[in-house]
């Protein structure tokens, strides 16, 4: 019979699952963008409830973005993080601000969930997938917070232990030696993250992929023409603010 010992389970969770979730993420998000671009956004409910909205959405998003960026930065420059943490005062600043950001996102998430339950109109646009995302985020943020409390100092050991594991996945030479020895709360945090990556392209989370950065450099007005031939020649370079977008 199969040996369903802890080693095989670890392989499944920390080698197979991340690859499966990443492949799923890439295939589904590209396929959905190409064939169902109409659905490629979040479903804003601000129109249905405009006051409580602010107190949930704003803290949640700012908190989660800071936390996520922190993980990415540590993943990219682990040495510099360790150097920064070599001084206790700097370590406390980093850990403290990361913890505050996570707390902010948790407060925002709780506020969002309360709003989704209590407002009768917002309830109408809340789907099962939304609840799965909320559950996933609760597990993710709570496990992250408790790791920060009970397994200090996370920013340092993330840089020295977790980052090599993640890079081993990236370079297709998976090495789970460090991960298998980690406390179960850390494992939960990692697995929950993979779950979110796998599930994201099916849900409203795809809105992250279409953040409107082109707005920052496009001209204000957009004009579309039938085709190149009908577009006025000689006036392609538009005066001032008025730009012609390509078809």
């Amino acid at each position: 019979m199969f040996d369903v010992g802890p080693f095989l389970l670890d392989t499944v969770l920390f080698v197979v699952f991340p690859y499966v979730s990443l492949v799923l993420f890439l295939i589904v998000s590209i396929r959905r963008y190409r064939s169902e671009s109409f659905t490629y956004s979040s479903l804003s409910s601000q129109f249905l409830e405009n006051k409580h909205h602010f107190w949930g959405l704003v803290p949640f998003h700012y908190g989660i973005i800071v936390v996520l960026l922190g993980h990415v930065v540590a993943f990219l420059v682990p040495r510099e993080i360790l150097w920064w943490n070599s001084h206790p005062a700097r370590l406390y600043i980093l850990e403290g601000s990361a913890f505050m950001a996570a707390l902010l996102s948790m407060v925002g998430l709780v506020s969002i969930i309360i709003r989704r339950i209590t407002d009768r109109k917002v309830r109408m646009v809340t789907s099962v997938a939304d609840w799965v995302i909320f559950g996933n985020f609760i597990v993710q943020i709570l496990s992250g917070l408790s790791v920060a409390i009970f397994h200090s100092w996370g920013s340092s050991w993330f840089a020295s232990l977790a980052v090599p594991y993640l890079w081993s996945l990236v370079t297709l030479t998976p090495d789970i030696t460090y991960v298998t020895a980690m406390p179960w709360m850390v494992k939960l945090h990692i697995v929950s993250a993979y779950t979110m990556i796998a599930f994201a392209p099916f849900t409203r989370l795809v809105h992250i992929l279409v953040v409107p950065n082109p707005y920052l450099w496009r001209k204000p007005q957009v004009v579309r023409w039938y085709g190149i031939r009908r577009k006025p020649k000689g006036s392609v370079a538009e005066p001032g603010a008025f730009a012609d977008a390509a078809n």
Partner: protein
Amino acid sequence: MNVRSQISMVFHLDKCIGCHTCSIACKNIWTDRKGTEYMWWNNVETKPGTGFPTKWEDQEKYRGGWELRDGKLVLKSTSKAKTVTNIFHNPSMPSMDDYYEPWTYKYDELFNAPEGSDQPTARPVSMVTGEYINVESGPNWDDDLGGSRIYAESDPNLKGLSEEQRQQLSAVERLVLFYFPRICNHCLNPSCVASCPSGALYKRGEDGIVLIDQKRCRGWRACVAACPYKKTFYNWSTGKSEKCVLCYPRLETGQAPACFHSCVGRIRYLGVLLYDADRLEEVAKLPDEQLIDGQRSLILDPHDPEVIAAARKNNIHDSVIESAQNSPVYKFVKEWKIALPPHIEYRTLPMLFYVPPMSPVMANRNDDTVSSVSDEFFHDIEQARVPLQFLANLFGAGHQGKLVYALKKQKAVRVYRRAKTVGDIPMKTAEAILREADCTVEEAERIYELTSLCTFEERFVIPPMHREEAIEMMKDPQEHKTAVGFGFMEPPERGL
């Protein structure tokens, strides 16, 4: 000169009877879907009144349109920096409470109610939640409520009116109202387009119709906040914004838009205007009192050989130029100057123009009551029952000059026609009044004809849209013919 063509509109308010047929025609075609029940791409407001959404003209509250800041044209509601910081919560976004919660009635309860001594009733239920609701507001909630303390007195256009004028508007014996039908203005400098973070809104180059690309819209809601006329709407079910499409599928097949076609009072006119796109920015930055003249100067004379040559150079089809030459809108706006843009101080350069309404005639004030005996047949427009400043706030960016000109000319045409057909006013007097109103006899006849005798073809001069050329860009027309109708396969539904 960078000549472009724009489908433009004139609404003759003196002919509007406030029947809402236009709104119903539009609703039945476009906004009877889930999530759009509350939208009225075409609506008819009572003025003075608060409108839809409530007090939409109060830009202190809604922050729509453009403003001049240090000589620069900037959006009131958003900017590049604000798009980043406000992306999670749009502070200028109106909510459903500013419109109304759409409802229907439980009609089946009329049939299924158990037998009893009471008459069965159909109770209202929300079209959002399906629950019973108390209907507390609606899309034309202040319909005909001119003079009301709650609605008419909250009209933002009452700004600058004296206390006496305000009281006059709400005194029972003298209160007066007129109707103000509204659709998207398909502006030359649309703030909705400029605000869209996704670049989903665009102006069609060939006819100037402003549309929202449903596949590119990501529901950031910036257009809803940025449109000062509140004519982009958020579909809460699909998470996309929608707006008046000027019935472009009808226009492309040579039919008038549904609201135009169904208009009972025949108040609506539609035609092409040629304009100079090179000067848009310059005009949009003019001081308030010069905006109307500035916008008129953008509109080019379609008979001018120089304009025709420049239009041809810009690939504007000869048939479109010919259509522009017959455009009723050109006559009202540019030749006769009796149609004015609504709230041009928002600087979006709206391309829907209104012929301002004449107040009721044959009435005189007599010891605080209105008597129908008048010493003068048509009273002076200065004594109009709707204060001129109120109309000027709506159609003149607060300045009365252009408005008085338009009303005087309308009145002169009436006097002239009265002299001609009834004869109780001497023709000499009528001609003097015409001269004073900067109007010739020929012009008066033409205004009269296009106002009173106009046929369907005179009101709607629809240019050929040449969509066939658009298809030739992509593929063989014969091949396209076998495949039309299969462009957008997915239903407008969301997945998980």
